[in-house]
């Protein structure tokens, strides 16, 4: 069952990460890319958590806590400073 869970979650997370990377590449706006990179960070955190749960170790636990603590700063910063630039309407 351990191998089945690992394979299923690995496939699911790989597909999810590929989709997020596609959204980062396609865009079309900067805020879309920031959202997609946030999702990608969540997928990395999910991979760390699944590794810990399946292999029964806690090496990455505080990395996961730090990820949830400061992971939002990047998107907040970008969203704060993108608000100053405008001029094109409805290009999302």
């Amino acid at each position, binding site marked *: 069952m351990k191998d089945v869970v690992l394979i299923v979650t690995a496939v699911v997370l790989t597909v999810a990460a590929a*989709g997020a990377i596609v959204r980062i590449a396609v865009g079309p706006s900067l*805020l879309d890319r920031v959202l997609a990179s946030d*999702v990608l960070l969540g997928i990395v955190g999910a991979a760390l958590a699944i590794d810990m749960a399946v292999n029964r170790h806690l090496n990455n636990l505080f990395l996961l806590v730090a990820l949830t603590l400061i992971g939002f700063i990047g998107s907040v910063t970008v969203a704060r400073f993108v608000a100053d630039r405008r001029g094109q309407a409805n290009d999302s």
Partner: protein
Amino acid sequence: MTPDAGGVDAVIDALTAVFLVLGALMSLTATIGLLRFPDLMSRMHAATKPQVLGLFLLLVAIGLQMRQWWVWPVLVVAWIFQLLTVPVSAHMVGRAGYRTKHLHPELLSVDELEAVVRRSANDPGEPGSAVELDNVLGLGETGDGALRGTAGQNLDDRGDGRGDQGESKG
């Protein structure tokens, strides 16, 4: 996970497997929404909501597998901070998307902010004017007046040639 588990261990392992797969599927849900939704607002909803539940399921799975009492407070801290920080980033991205007009107004069912913007454009200086609106939106301390272009007044208040701000509504 133990390979040949029986009794309670088997139940816990099965529960862990279900939680892990569901938590991974939540990330996949976020990505599907990110790829298929039409504009920034709906993508913001899809990107910021399912992964909180997904991380909750994965953290419960870790707690079930480790069975040490000190793990649970750390997991609770991780999830509480996820609950606190994800809405902040979602709010900031959504607000920046509204202000930079990365939205399709015909797809919105309710736009409460539009009435406020229109009222501030009609009654400059009244409560609800552009400066008041910046305070309402939480940017009053920066004082950049970023919604004045939307309200149709003070277009070139900084004199840096931003004439393109005036083509918005209002």
